[in-house]
């Protein structure tokens, strides 16, 4: 059973547009929700993360919105750039147990 469901599978956005990726989880024990960015040939790298005691976290052009009651969280990339083209994974977990989404392939068209 998939612990974290991620959508969409792929996303094409024009340069300067907003990219939005959504994730949903079931286990209310999860207390850490990171987003990872992965470029081809590289391992995933932590982009931004949030804990359930806040509803939003912003770092530069990247924002996580968190809805605890709906058990959903999303990544917003403002002013998307071609350099943002990568695969994005959401994850959820606690302690040492993390469950990842299936990834979203983002392409930003110049």
């Amino acid at each position: 059973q998939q612990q974290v469901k991620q959508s969409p599978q792929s996303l094409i956005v024009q340069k300067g547009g907003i990219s939005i990726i959504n994730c949903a989880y079931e286990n209310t024990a999860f207390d850490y929700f990171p987003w990872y960015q992965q470029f081809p040939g590289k391992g995933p790298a932590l982009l931004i993360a949030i804990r359930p005691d806040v509803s939003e976290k912003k770092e530069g052009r990247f924002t996580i919105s968190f809805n605890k009651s709906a058990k959903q969280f999303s990544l917003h990339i403002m002013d998307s750039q071609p350099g943002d083209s990568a695969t994005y994974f959401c994850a959820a977990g606690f302690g040492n147990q993390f469950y990842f989404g299936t990834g979203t392939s983002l392409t930003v068209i110049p």
Partner: protein
Amino acid sequence: EADIYQTPRYLVIGTGKKITLECSQTMGHDKMYWYQQDPGMELHLIHYSYGVNSTEKGDLSSESTVSRIRTEHFPLTLESARPSHTSQYLCASSESLGKIYEQYFGPGTRLTVT
């Protein structure tokens, strides 16, 4: 950039061969992990370790084994490779302090078993 290394980066090997995928980190992290990554699929945890001489199996059943004799080193071994083992293998590490959960990933090993 994280100081976690994996070798080899790419490996093509025949069925039945024994292989060891190497993973090393220089950050002094106690916790280390091995994930399997296939296209369009989530990362699956196959092994993890909380420290020296500590190893556990993850959620995904795997025919591989791991060892943790030194803090910085966490190799993964397949005794007899099969085509079903073809995948990308990612190693990661994290600190043990409090609730810091950030995992640092290596670049991965792309394994193809023919």
